[in-house]
């Protein structure tokens, strides 16, 4: 008897997923619930367990292939059927001697990195665990397939991205297969840019008082090992402003031609990681204190960089904040985080000479760039939203009035 394991709906309403890495090979015996394969859905890596014990008879999708929900990924044989043994690989199978095969230097590396080598599936000859296997395992709790080097051959082109015959790489260029997170970012950006008519509004916020408030808060908190950045304050101000301007906190439901106003402030934070852009979501910004927000931003950013975010932490945002201050630049025209209706980019704080109270004085100023979906929001509404945000950030004491302003 054989069982075809279908790509399940892994809970995000997704239709397809990319196979990233097989944790078993044809011929392997698997136990029920043993991890089989890693698939990448909307920016999240998901490990799928075996639905039943048995022997892996056939693997139908290779790493890089896109599979649709319901497609059979792998066939598992129960009972008498046996697949071709792969003993020709040479050397005893790990399972045959009951030990993991690995060279001493690999074992040492695993010990140094705190990786339990017995839990790894070796990719080397005869199932040997290699140094790469160990180092991949440590990159994340759930290992992420490293993109192949540019010159590596690309045996199969991912479905849905058909093109002409694969060009051979020439001296003057490097070809990087669009895989994994990069592909997810690319697809999402194309969808957003070519469905929502984008408009970006710029403004300048006076944050002189906010700086003073933050400085005072940090000096009061000095003994507690907490250091606040500007982000939690901005989040708090955003939640208050969004409450007054619900169209900025909305999704566009294209299928039903409806604008969906969200009653909760779940604000995504764009995080730059070595693999690409990730946007973990801070939930219920309206209900949390500045301190709680600070802690949550820190945790989410760390998990984004180590690729250990859960799928749940990457979905459900109602608005996105992109902090470009640490990197630089004065303005940007960000692409919306589809299907959200608006996104705010904040830029670095600078001292500038401005007219304030009838005099030219030096004040701390910060540029903001607000992109919005013109199907949902008109320019006037966007500017009113920015004005409200400015009012709160320029008079941070007003944020006290928002302290218990949970929406519902």
């Amino acid at each position: 008897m054989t069982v075809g394991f279908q790509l399940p709906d892994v809970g995000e309403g997704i239709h397809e997923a990319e196979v990233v890495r097989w944790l078993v090979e044809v011929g392997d015996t698997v136990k029920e619930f043993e991890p089989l394969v890693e698939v990448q859905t909307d920016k999240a890596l998901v490990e799928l367990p075996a639905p039943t014990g048995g022997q892996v008879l056939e693997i139908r999708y290779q790493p890089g292939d896109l599979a649709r929900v319901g497609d059979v990924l792998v066939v598992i044989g129960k009972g008498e059927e046996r697949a071709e043994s792969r003993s020709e690989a040479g050397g005893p199978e790990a399972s045959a001697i009951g030990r993991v095969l690995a060279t001493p230097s690999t074992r040492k590396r695993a010990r140094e990195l705190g990786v339990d080598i017995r839990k790894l599936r070796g990719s080397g000859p005869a199932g040997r665990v290699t140094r790469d296997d160990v180092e991949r395992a440590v990159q994340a709790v759930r290992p992420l397939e490293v993109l192949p080097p540019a010159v590596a051959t690309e045996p199969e082109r991912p479905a849905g991205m058909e093109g002409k015959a694969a060009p051979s790489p020439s001296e003057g260029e490097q070809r990087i297969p669009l895989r994994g997170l990069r592909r997810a970012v690319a697809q999402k950006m194309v969808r957003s840019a070519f469905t929502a008519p984008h408009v970006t509004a710029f403004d300048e916020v006076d944050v002189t008082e906010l700086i003073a408030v933050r400085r005072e808060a940090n000096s009061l908190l000095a003994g507690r090992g907490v250091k606040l950045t500007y982000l939690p304050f901005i989040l708090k101000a955003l939640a208050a402003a969004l409450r007054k301007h619900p169209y900025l906190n909305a999704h566009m439901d294209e299928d039903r031609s409806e604008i969906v106003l969200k009653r909760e402030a779940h604000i995504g934070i764009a995080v730059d990681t070595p693999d690409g852009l990730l946007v973990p979501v801070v939930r219920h910004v309206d209900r949390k204190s500045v301190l709680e927000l600070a802690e949550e931003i820190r945790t989410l950013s760390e998990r984004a960089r180590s690729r250990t975010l859960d799928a749940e932490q990457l979905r459900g945002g109602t608005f996105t904040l992109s902090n470009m201050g640490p990197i630089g630049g004065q303005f940007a025209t960000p692409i919306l985080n589809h299907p959200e209706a608006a996104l705010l980019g904040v830029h670095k704080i600078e001292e500038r000479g401005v007219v304030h109270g009838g005099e030219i004085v030096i004040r701390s100023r910060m540029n903001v760039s607000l992109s919005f979906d013109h199907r949902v929001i008109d320019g006037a509404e966007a500017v009113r939203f920015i004005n409200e945000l400015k009012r709160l950030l320029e008079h941070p004491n007003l944020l006290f009035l928002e302290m218990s302003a949970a929406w519902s």
Partner: protein
Amino acid sequence: MAKLNLIQAITDGLRTALRDDPRVLVFGEDVGVNGGVFRATDGLQEEFGAVRVVDTPLAESAIIGAAVGLAVSGMRPVPEMQFAGFIYPAMEQIVSHAARVRMRSQGRFSCPMVIRAPYGGGIRAPELHGDSPEAFFVHQPGIKVVCPSNPYDAKGLLLAAIEDPDPVLFLEPMRIYRAFRDEVPAERYTVEIGKSRTVRAGKDLSLFAWGTMLRVSLEAAAQAAERGWDVEVIDLRTLNPLDREGIAASVRRTGRALIVHEAPKTAGLGAEILSLINEEALLYLEAPVGRVCGYDVPQPLFALEDLHAPDAKRIMHGIEKVMNF
């Protein structure tokens, strides 16, 4: 500075020792009037007289036995075995006496002698003329074993061996006696016993060799470089005591090792070096340590001897095996 080949460097070393130290005596079969079958002692009897450069009967046991007595009595004998394969009749004198004098006398006497012996195949000689017996002597505590691979080291190691207070077996790679020339200083200098030399630095694999195997190993390393493998070649120079630190440090750096010797594989010196790596560098190994050696047969006659000693091709195959593990 004179450019000398290996045999000339040895003659130069012997001449330096005879000139500087009246206790030094050179003797063996045909070393006097004839000047040695390989010309190692050419002109020495003329220069230093028949009392210090002496022809002996064809009796290896007597040659070494006399040397033991002379050494214990305060002389610095440098006996020659015409070929290393002729050393077996003298085993008893070397193992039972020369190597044990210091311990037997609880340190009151030592046995400062240097046994010179051309070793290895490749010169189309008859039976017993091509042996590589280093492992027999490395196994015997109390006697040092050195083996130069070039003219500079030959003179420097020979003088260091003659200065050494204990017996030293000085193995000469006869196949490369005249293969190439080096700059060899005319004055006295020594090469420290117990220190290996990195002949070619590399980061992917440590290749250990000595004597005749050095040049073929370097050839193989050059071939490996074409394949993108950066092989470090280390000339051990002293086989007992081994340069434990030098060997271990290199393997820790490269993670891979290959040992090349002409002697048969089983219980050859490669096995000892492999054990040393196991003891000192196991956790750094990326692959099993490889050995490319002579086969487990008595040294074959000349029709087959080229098949017996490792050549660059066999060494390259050994490198491949370790690199591709």
